Each structure stands twice: as structure tokens, then as C-alpha cells.
């Protein structure tokens, strides 16, 4: 002991002396995602006429509003170190419940509340199972996914169109921004949710506990934080976001169908990861997830402008990017450790 002490003291002393806070380190992945988005958008603008317009940019939000909301909820869950595979199916269930209830003549506000309650309830339920039985979130939410998807087909196997005036108004109603750019109410809702999530995650004890759990769940428990409640709530928020996304998707498609949003949970996870959030939890930003969705959107737009490529190339591009970002994160973590 006595013999090793001198060097160790040396070592730590020198380390703290020469250490500079790596401030940009934490936001580096987000910056990288932003740069990638700018690059992709730039490439599109150079190669295709009409790409570099405000409307093309606004369309990224319009066509992906539901995915943005989904990614926000997913960010909460992934930050705690978990995962939620059920959200795509919950979106489908939400469209199905909404379409059926509206068809049955229930008033729109009531339908919206019903859908939100179902989504949140399912999320909370999964959270409770995950926390109290200490089961892997992967398995629990996988079960939730099958349950939600199955329920869609219990309600009906056919696609049900939505004719409710309120939903129709939301779908067709637009807001004109300066410069002639048009957005939908869905975009406003999605961005409001992003803003709310940023506030909750960074400026509330609840949000900081989410990060703490992701950093070290056992430490968070020993620090006396309400780990159980926050974890369950994170899945509740994911469920809530999934049902909001489901409503936005209903508005977007104007129909309810059990085969809607197949695999959308994976798009959401991909967006969150491309946005720089670590799958192990504790590190990441909602804004990164938003950028992740935009990157996915811009790839889709590029492929549609290109015209001859099959839309499945989007999947290949996303797969490649995902792999790239995961490897990048790993290298980054190695460097900082």
C-alpha cells in the first residue's frame, strides 16, 4: 500500500491538473447528426431542382409529426436504459380505437381522451411489470406490442375511414408561415411536445431522475430518488406519446387500420439512436431525437426526388446510418474512458 501510494497520488494529481472539461463531448453526437442533416439537405438542394425550398423542409415535419412524438416518448424510455417496442402497435391501436369510436358516433374530444387513456394505461402497466417483477423491458414491451396489435384485429380486420369533421379539419387545416410555407396543426402539436419534453427532462427533478436512472440505477436508488415511480412514469409517457402519435397518424391517414405503423417502433428507436442517445441510457437529448427523425425524413425525400429508386432504399440507408452511429458512439465512449 505504502509503496504504491506515491505514483497513484502523482497520477491523480496530474490528471486533475491537466484535465479540461470536454464540454462539446456530450453534445458531439447531436452536432454530428445536425451536420449530417445539413449535408443531406445540401446534397438534395444541389442535385434536385426545387429541393432547396422552405416547403420541402416544412414537409419533413408534416410527414413525420407522428414519428417525432413517438421518438420523444422513446427518448424518455431509452434514457432510463430501457426500450419500448410496443409503440408502433399502440399507434395502430390508437387509430383503430379512434376510427371505431368516431364511427360509433362518440364526440371527438371524448374519443381523444379515450385513446390517450388507453395508450398511457398500457405504458404504465408495462412499466409496473418491468419495475416490480424486474423483467427485461425488451420482453415486456414485446408482449405489449403483440397485445396491442392483436387488439386492433379484435376491433376489426378492415380499414375504417374517419369522417369526423374535427379530424378532417385537423387534417386539411393549415397554418401559413411567413414566406408562403405551409404547415399543419400536427406539426405544431409535435413541436409543442418536443418543447415540453425538453423542459421536463432538463428542468424538473423527474427529468433529472430519468437521467440518473440511466447513469446508474442502483446509485439512483441509494441516493434516495424515486426510481420506481420515475421508471414506471417513463413508460407511461412513452405510451402517452404513442397514443398522441396514433391520433396524429389517424389525422394523417384519416383511417384506422390494424396494419398501420408496422415497424414504426423501430423507426422511432433508430431516430433516437441516430440522434445521439446512448442505448445504455443516461446520455442523450430530445433535440437529438428530433434531428434523428429529420435525417430519416430527408433520406426519404431524397429518394422520392430521385424518382427511380425503390422506397425500400430508405431502409437500407437507415440501416447503414444506424450502424455507423452505433459504431461512432462506441468509439467515442472508448476515447472518453
Amino acid at each position: 500500500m505504502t509503496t504504491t501510494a506515491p505514483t497513484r497520488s502523482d497520477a491523480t494529481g496530474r490528471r486533475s491538473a491537466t484535465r479540461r472539461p470536454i464540454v462539446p463531448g456530450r453534445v458531439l453526437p447531436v452536432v454530428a447528426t445536425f451536420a449530417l442533416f445539413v449535408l443531406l439537405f445540401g446534397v438534395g438542394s444541389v442535385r434536385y431542382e426545387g429541393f432547396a425550398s422552405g416547403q420541402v423542409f416544412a414537409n419533413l415535419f408534416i410527414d413525420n409529426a407522428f414519428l417525432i412524438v413517438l421518438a420523444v416518448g422513446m427518448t424518455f424510455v431509452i434514457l432510463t436504459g430501457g426500450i419500448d417496442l410496443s409503440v408502433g402497435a399502440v399507434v395502430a391501436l390508437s387509430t383503430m380505437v379512434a376510427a371505431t369510436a368516431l364511427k360509433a358516433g362518440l364526440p371527438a374530444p371524448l374519443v381523444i381522451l379515450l385513446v390517450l387513456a388507453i395508450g398511457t394505461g398500457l405504458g404504465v402497466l408495462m412499466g409496473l411489470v418491468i419495475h416490480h417483477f424486474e423483467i427485461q423491458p425488451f420482453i415486456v414491451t414485446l408482449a405489449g406490442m403483440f397485445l396491442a396489435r392483436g387488439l386492433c384485429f379484435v376491433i376489426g380486420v378492415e380499414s375504417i375511414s374517419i369522417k369526423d369533421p374535427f379530424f378532417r379539419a385537423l387534417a386539411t387545416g393549415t397554418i401559413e408561415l411567413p414566406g408562403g410555407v405551409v404547415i399543419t396543426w400536427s406539426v405544431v402539436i409535435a413541436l409543442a411536445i418536443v418543447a415540453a419534453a425538453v423542459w421536463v427532462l432538463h428542468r424538473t427533478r423527474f427529468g433529472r431522475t430519468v437521467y440518473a436512472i440511466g447513469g446508474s440505477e442502483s446509485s439512483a436508488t441509494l441516493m434516495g430518488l424515486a426510481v420506481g415511480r420515475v421508471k414506471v412514469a417513463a413508460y407511461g409517457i412513452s405510451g402517452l406519446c404513442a397514443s398522441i402519435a396514433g391520433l396524429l397518424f389517424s389525422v394523417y391517414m384519416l383511417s384506422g387500420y390494424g396494419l398501420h405503423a408496422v415497424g414504426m417502433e423501430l423507426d422511432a428507436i433508430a431516430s433516437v439512436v441516430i440522434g445521439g442517445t446512448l442505448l445504455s441510457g443516461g446520455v442523450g437529448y430530445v433535440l437529438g431525437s428530433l434531428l434523428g427523425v429529420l435525417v430519416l425524413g430527408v433520406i426519404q425525400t431524397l429518394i422520392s426526388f430521385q424518382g427511380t429508386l425503390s422506397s425500400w432504399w430508405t431502409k437500407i440507408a437507415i440501416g447503414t446510418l444506424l450502424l455507423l452511429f452505433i459504431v461512432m458512439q462506441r468509439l467515442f465512449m472508448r476515447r472518453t474512458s
Partner: protein
Amino acid sequence: MTDTSSTTVAEPDGPGGAADPVVAMRAITMEFPGVRALQDVDFRLFPGEVHALMGENGAGKSTLIKVLTGVYTSTSGTTELRGERIAFSGPGEAQASGVSTVYQEVNLCPNLSVAENILLGREPRRFGSIDMGATRARAAELLGRMGLTIDPGSILAEHPIAIQQLVAIARAVAVDAQVLILDEPTSSLDQDEVAELFRIMRHLRDEGVAILFVSHFLEQVYEIADRMTVLRNGRLVGEYLTTDLTRLQLVSAMIGRELGALAEVERLADAAADDVDGTPVLEATGLGRRGSIAPFDLRIAAGEVVGLAGLLGSGRTELARLLFGADRADSGEVRVDGRALSLRTPRSAIAAGIAFCSEDRKGEGILADLSIRDNLVLAMQAARGWARPIPRRTKDELVETWVTALDIRPSNPDALVGTLSGGNQQKVLLARWLVTQPRLLILDEPTRGIDIGAKAQIQKLVAQLAAEGMAVVYISAELEEVARLSHRVVVLKDRTKVAELDGSASVDDIMRLIASAEGADPTDPSGPDGPSDPTRRSPSSTHDDVVLTEQVAS
């Protein structure tokens, strides 16, 4: 160290003046399935004292602390805080009542800022929003009170473990704790850092905080503690004033037997030294790996203990990993029993009769969720191949033999290894390899973080094994151990073998060699302790990781 002028004795009627204990635990009994961890233990803690809780591994120190902080609910007995009966539901509630704990492993969130780690859960708020500025200011104030000048906005993981430990203490006292429990806070700190910690502890004590201190380092206990309570095998041995108890009395109170074991080790080691015969079990020539350890020659004969001495990051562990095939050598060759062998994986090393106990007991050693039995037969099963399961009867016999031989406690083979104390985990690990009857046993820091009694037992065992003809490579940061046990000592410095001494070498000889100016300039920043973040461990075996592993695992 017997000088007590700097300490205030806080007896009930002593100069501390506090007549009532802040914590009074009476007749605490704690039973786990198959194990009685505590039996009728009384414990008192007074305001304004540093009280050491002493005992071997498995004596029940941690259990007592966990009962106090509400992690466990005692089977029987009462706990009073400031005269009121309490039974906390968990650390959160304990903390709210002014009982804070700092654990051996830093239990903070590495991904958050220093300020947040100190104030998480009680950040200052304004209009429902956390006021980050005020959070940082409050954290800076708390750190300042402890004499620390680190940026509260920096991320915790960027700081060395020692600083993280102090941040954990800052968090503990931020709640105006009246009772501060420090569970082995010094095991990863060096001398200066320990001095810093003690300064802070004295400061808090003088403010009237009651501090419960657990440490394996006797000198530290004598330096800081006013009183001590000694536990043995889950029972109370006694409560003493530090000044009333000599070290020898303390040690025999802790282990309940005379310290003859160490003398026996030396006798055994000396006896074995005489019958070292010439056949090398293992002979390495020019073995090396770039960036890990410079090429070295090494000969180990049957019945010989070769000690590896050197500072942290000198290449001790790297050398051992090469011999075991855990890292692949890029130069040189290895002969086992005179036959050239390529040790490319641990599998081939095991087949050649080489066993390796890693210094990272938790990460690379035990399987915490398996029973003693399963852990014990693991290496043997691996050697037999999965297709030939070991019959239950053989297993039971093996387990019984080794549990008895190594005095593993609890002796119940179904106990989960994760619930055992560090010393007993180490014994299970040793037994795992011993059942495979290896020719060469490589032990990397087998005695770190375990108590004196178990240390002596393990050293004795090593000497016995060598006497029976096993070749042993023994790595330890404690040069006394290396000098005591080894027939030859290989001295490493800056990833190079610098000398080989015979068994008569003293600790001073070894230290002189390590300290000599030869080799790299110790202040060279590209040297062993180059600038790198020491707080995260990665499985690769670069230089810094060695330093880290030692800090984290101890």
C-alpha cells in the same frame, strides 16, 4: 499513531459532553435463509465522534449498516435515532432523517454533473423549474466548505475516483446529516487523498456529526477513530476507546485467534524454498506484447513461488495475462514442461495446466448469481467439456473438501457467491482453479480488499501449495506479501522487467529497485499515468486501465 491529542473522546460522560447517543441499536439479530448474519448486536453512536466498526469480512459490518439505513429489516432488535424508535424503509427515508451513507463503490451517476450529483432530488427550484445556476452555486458552496475547488458544472465521470468519493461525501452532508456512515471510503484513495478525507471527517465531527467509519486499514482507524466497536462472526465482541486498545488486541479481537498464521507462512515458504528442483514448469523467452509489456524471460520451477513486484501499471497484470493467454504475445515463445506451446487463448493455457485468478474479482472472477457449488466446479467442468457433466456426488465431495480446506464461510454450498464477503469470494475463486489441479497458478492481487485473517489464510495456502509442488506466480501491491512468500521476485517497472531477486530479498531491496532512476522518467506524461480518464473501466488492457481497475476493484 497512539498520539490522541488531536482526537476528542466522545464517551457518554466524556469531554464531548453529549450524554445521549444519536443512534442506539439494541440486540439486533438478522437472519438470512441459512445464514445468521447478526446475533444480539448492540451498537451506539454519539454525536461528535468518529466511531470505527471493525471486523473481518463476513463479521456483519455491512449487514449492521444496512439494518441501520433500512436496506434490511432486522429479524429482531430495536434501532433508536435520537431516542425515537425507527425502522427506515430504505436509504431515502434514512437520508431524510439525517442518516447518510457513503459506500465503498462510488454510488453516484457518472453521466451527470458534479453539482447535480450533490443535489439530485433536492435541487433549488424556481416556479417549478430547477434553477441550474442556483444548483451550481449551492454545490460550489458545499464543495468549498470541504475545501474542494472543482467545477460543479463538470461531468462526474471526468474526475478521478478519489474526487468522486469526496463528491459523494459532499452529497451526504448536504442534507445536514447528523449521522454519516462511511463504508470503506479509503480503499481506492492514496495517502494524500486519505489525509484530505480525514481532514474533512474531523471538520464534520467538530460540527457535531456522528461518523461511522469502516476500514480495513488499521493505521487509518487508529488515526481517525475515537471509539470502535468490534464484531466477529455476527456477534458483538466489544466497544472500546481507541486509546484503550492496542493494535494487537484489536486484531485478536477481530479474528479471535493469535496471529500465528503469518509466521507459519514464512516457515512454510522457507521450507519449500529448499526443495525447488530444476525442471521449469514454464519457461518464457523473449515473451512480449507491444504496448503492453516489453519482452522478458521467465522461468518458473515446480514448487516455486515467483513474486511480481512493481507499481500500479508497471506491467504486472499484463505479464500475467500473457502467460495465461488472455492477451496474445507478439514476440517470444513459451515452453511448458520443455515443450513449445502457443498460448493464444486462456483455453490453451488451461489445457496446459495454467490457472489465473484475475485481480478483478467481480468482473473477471466470480459469478455472483451462482451458488458456491456452481462457481467451484466451473473451471473443472470447462476442462472436461460440456458433454461430460460432473456427477452430483463428485461435485458435492469436491465442494465439501474445498469449503472445509479453505474455510469458506458460509459453508452452505447453495449460498450465492454474490452474498459472500470479499475474502470468501476470493477463496471460492481459488478453489475453482485448485480443483483442476493446475501445474502453474497465477494469482493477481489475491489479497486485495480482504481482511487480515483471510489474507493470512490465503498466503498460507499459497505457501502450502508450493510446498506440495505447484508453481505459483504471485502478484501483489503489498510488497511485504511478495517478499514473504516468494522464492524469487521479478521486479517490473514501466512495463519492463528490470530485475530478478532471490528469495532473501527484502522489501527495501525491492523498493530501491522500483524507485531507482533507471527506466522511464516518472514524470513523463506519456508514461504509465498519461492523461486519460481514470473512472471508467474497459476490458482492454491498456496501461491506464490497469490503474483504473485497481482503483475501481479495490
